[in-house]
């Protein structure tokens, strides 16, 4: 742990932890089981990668949501439901 109270950790599951603590003279924060301490540059790089991975997963979820909502809307409309009701039930808002 650096003297500025910062600690950067990498875990076996690929998760990363940043710790910002009040510096205390003679006190070192422990490294948790299953983790290794890394330096700030490594942490910054891994954090950028982690945030990008999370963003990609969420983009994929949004895309899947839109596809499912459109499919639901189409099915509901085909079944004869009014457009407003079909949109509300499916959550489909594109083109409305």
């Amino acid at each position, binding site marked *: 742990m650096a003297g500025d109270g910062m600690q950067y950790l990498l875990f076996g599951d690929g998760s990363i932890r940043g710790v910002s603590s009040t510096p205390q003279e003679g006190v070192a924060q422990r490294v948790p089981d299953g983790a290794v301490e890394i330096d700030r540059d490594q942490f910054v790089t891994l954090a950028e990668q982690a945030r990008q991975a999370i963003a990609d997963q969420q983009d994929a979820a*949004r895309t899947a949501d839109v596809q499912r909502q459109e499919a639901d809307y189409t099915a509901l409309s085909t079944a004869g439901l009014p457009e407003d009701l079909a949109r509300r039930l499916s959550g489909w808002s594109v083109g409305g």
Partner: protein
Amino acid sequence: MVPIARCGCGGECACNLVAGDNVQVSGSGTSAVPWVVTAITDCPEVRQCISGVDGVDYDPTTGVLDVCVSPDAGNGLTRDANGCLYVAGAPGTVITGCGLVGDGTPATPVTANTGVWPFTCTPETNGSIVACDANGQLRGEPPYHTYYFQSIQEQLFPANPVVPAADDTVVLTFTFDIVNPDPCRTMRVIQWRDLDVDFNLPVGADAASGISTDEMTHTTNTGTATVLDTHTQVGKVTQPNAALAPGAGVTLSLEAALGKGSGGATYNRIQGSFRVVLMPV
């Protein structure tokens, strides 16, 4: 030898009158020339008969008598400009400084200038202490200090793990080591800990979070689209240590517990924080 006149007779008396040590005799014992016996002082001999006692200096060679004035520190007896004995201040008078009152007389002895104890508790068991340090200076009790520490910890999960179904499943533990920096006083440790979990909740999914076995949030997605990064920061105040000795340390911990995972609920970030105050016991 001194000639001795005879009373009413002619001639001289056969008696002899001799002057001994330190005595001088003159005359013949007649009416016209009577004997005169004079004592003669022999100073060196007299000096040998005198001695000094406690408080008196005596020189048998010169015959000078003097009082003995102690050179020890703290002696109040001294000599004035004429060599006479002198004690500063009138007898029974003490000049006091700050914190002392009285003049040293039996009627008003010197005492500490104390205040009135205004509390219902007794000073014998509740009063603070005034002590004397190694330099002879009066000292009060050490000052009261409070201390504050904090630790903010954030963990990112790029693998986007699934929220466990079982309630209060501890998925990680944050720790924070602190030491009581006070050199004198034992401290009560009061901590605020909070937890903030970012969930991704597909339609119909459930997720809950809390600290240890205390579930504090529970969210269900009842909408028509995935809820991304939904999170709520919740916390509580606890006392992890009631009496942390000077220089002693303690490890604070925060167990992030998740549960009620269903419908594909995942999490990608957990933040925990410790905000700690140390107060004198």
